[in-house]
């Protein structure tokens, strides 16, 4: 295994107009992606947007209707899954129930015809990497969810694939374990310098783990960029809405503030870029409104401010200490700085 951090030498994946239809449904629709060696990539999107299908195309379990995929300059074409140098951690893990932990990890090494002693050593290293050394003789049924997760990782990583695909590997775990494994997974990726493609429908998970995130909707790639890019410069209304919270307003809604968005565009105003009360007076765009609800979360509070009954209320995030004696029903001033707002095309 690549134990020491070093520049990634393999794992550059190019996808070129990949399309896959199931009957009338375009599950993957003309996706272009250029992924660098050693990157941690997240595929983010709501359930049913085609993430698993795209992963299965990269793995070779589904054939794309059109488009090309190349790994380190090698066309993947119709190469079968076992000749692609790609690893996959399945959503249900797919550990072999008839084999022990060590035998699961040794499975791929044995197929490659490695010597017995070499296999034992590689398995031990891989299990040490995921901190499971002590459990190598256990049956899969005797492991906890988090331990199984690590066996699946070790089984894939021991083969040193150019790319490791992970299909919502943490979605079945409880929140605490999930956070812990997110950290471990990220550290593991840094150490092995393997290209990771991590599928998730949880935007927080995607933003906190990945170097770059690909956001999908209805089979289409909406945006591919760093977490900051997605949040600060969303490319579409969908991304602005799906990644983080946003007040998305059109020209008509902004007219009362005296603000004009660029032509055929919407403004994306993040809740933390809004202010109320005295803090709002220094901001260029202001209007009076009524506090509808206050969710106090501790470090901050989330308020909904109604400007008039018909319109959608604004979401505002303020410092927890600034709540003071604010109460629902009170009138206040809502302000924001249009210069800090992103704009996205109106449909």
């Amino acid at each position: 295994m690549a134990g020491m951090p070093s520049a990634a030498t393999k794992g550059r994946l190019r996808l070129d107009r990949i399309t896959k239809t199931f009957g009338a449904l375009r599950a993957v629709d003309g996706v272009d992606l250029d992924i660098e060696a050693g990157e941690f990539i997240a595929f983010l999107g709501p359930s049913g947007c085609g993430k698993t299908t795209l992963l299965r195309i990269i793995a070779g379990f589904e054939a794309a209707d059109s488009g090309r995929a190349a790994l380190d300059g090698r066309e993947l074409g119709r190469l079968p899954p076992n000749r692609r140098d790609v690893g996959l951690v399945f959503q249900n893990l797919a550990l072999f129930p008839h084999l022990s932990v060590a035998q699961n990890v040794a499975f791929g090494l044995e197929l490659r015809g490695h010597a017995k002693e070499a296999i034992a050593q590689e398995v031990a290293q891989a299990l040490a990497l995921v901190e499971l050394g002590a459990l190598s003789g256990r049956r899969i049924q005797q492991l906890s969810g988090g331990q199984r997760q690590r066996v699946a990782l070790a089984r894939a990583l021991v083969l040193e694939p150019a790319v490791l695909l992970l299909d919502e590997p943490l979605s079945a775990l409880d929140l605490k374990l999930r956070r812990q494994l997110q950290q471990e997974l990220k550290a593991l990726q840094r150490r092995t310098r393997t290209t990771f493609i991590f599928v998730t429908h949880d935007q927080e998970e995607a933003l906190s783990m990945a170097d770059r995130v690909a956001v999908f909707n209805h089979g289409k790639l909406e945006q591919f960029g760093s977490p900051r890019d997605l949040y600060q410069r969303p490319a579409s209304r969908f991304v602005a809405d799906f990644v983080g919270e946003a007040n998305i307003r059109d020209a008509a809604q902004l007219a009362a503030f005296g603000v004009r968005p660029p032509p055929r565009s919407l403004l994306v105003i993040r809740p933390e870029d809004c202010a109320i009360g005295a803090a709002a007076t220094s901001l260029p765009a202001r209007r009076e409104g009524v506090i509808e609800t206050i969710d106090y979360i501790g470090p901050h509070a989330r308020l909904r401010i109604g400007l008039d009954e018909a319109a959608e209320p604004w979401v505002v995030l303020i410092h927890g200490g600034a709540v003071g004696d604010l109460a629902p029903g009170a009138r206040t001033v809502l302000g924001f700085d249009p210069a800090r707002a992103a704009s996205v095309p109106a449909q």
Partner: protein
Amino acid sequence: MGLSPATRIIAVLLLILLPAPLIIVIGASFSPRAVLAFPPPGFSWRWYLEFLGSTAWITAFAQSAVIAIVAAVVTTIIAVLAALALDRAPARLRSAAETAILAPLLFPHAAIGIAFLGWLSMLHLNGGFIGVLMAHLILCAPFAYRPIAVSLRQIDRSLTEAATILGAEPRQTLTRVVLPLLRPGIAASLLFSFIISFDEVTVTMFLTGPQFTTLPVSIYTHIHDSADPVVAAISSVLILLTAGLVLLIDRLVGLRIFIDIEEEGRHAPA
């Protein structure tokens, strides 16, 4: 469990009535006299010793055992191949083929016996090992196919895909993942086919001859001529053997495997 009193009474009666004939046979086998009687007029091992001392009986027993072992192994191999092939076949072809495999359960055994008799005489295989074996393969097929097909359907597709992406060729996936996971089905198939073949009378009767016969058929013929308790002793041995094997199946894989064939298909990965 929430059973009504009436249900309980019926259940208890059934549990008493079902094994009653077996108890009578076993009891009669210990009779010291040369007539079948229950309760036995005394206790002796006489008829067991007669069975063990008779070349004719032991030959029939050995021939039955050989045919049951061969039938179990061959049917199981065929059933594994059939289940693997049908697993990938279009749904309509699969259900047609499964109906054919399960058909021997529905046809009257006497009809099957006569059909085989005619067919085997055409092939000049009457009265021999091969003829009986062919009939037993057909009769065992449903009992071999069911547990294997059930086991196969319980193997999640992601397991074979995992083997593939770890580098396995289709044949390696079969030997390293699919066959090991089929073990419960294969064990059930072997044991049940053995029992079916070992205990079969109706069809086999049409097909045995002077050179080749099986134990249950010999019992049936013997009973025509005399009613001495040696048949009770042999039957008791058969009962014990069968019960032991059924217990073994239940211990190893559970008897549910014969019921579950129509249950949910394999899961597609989410």
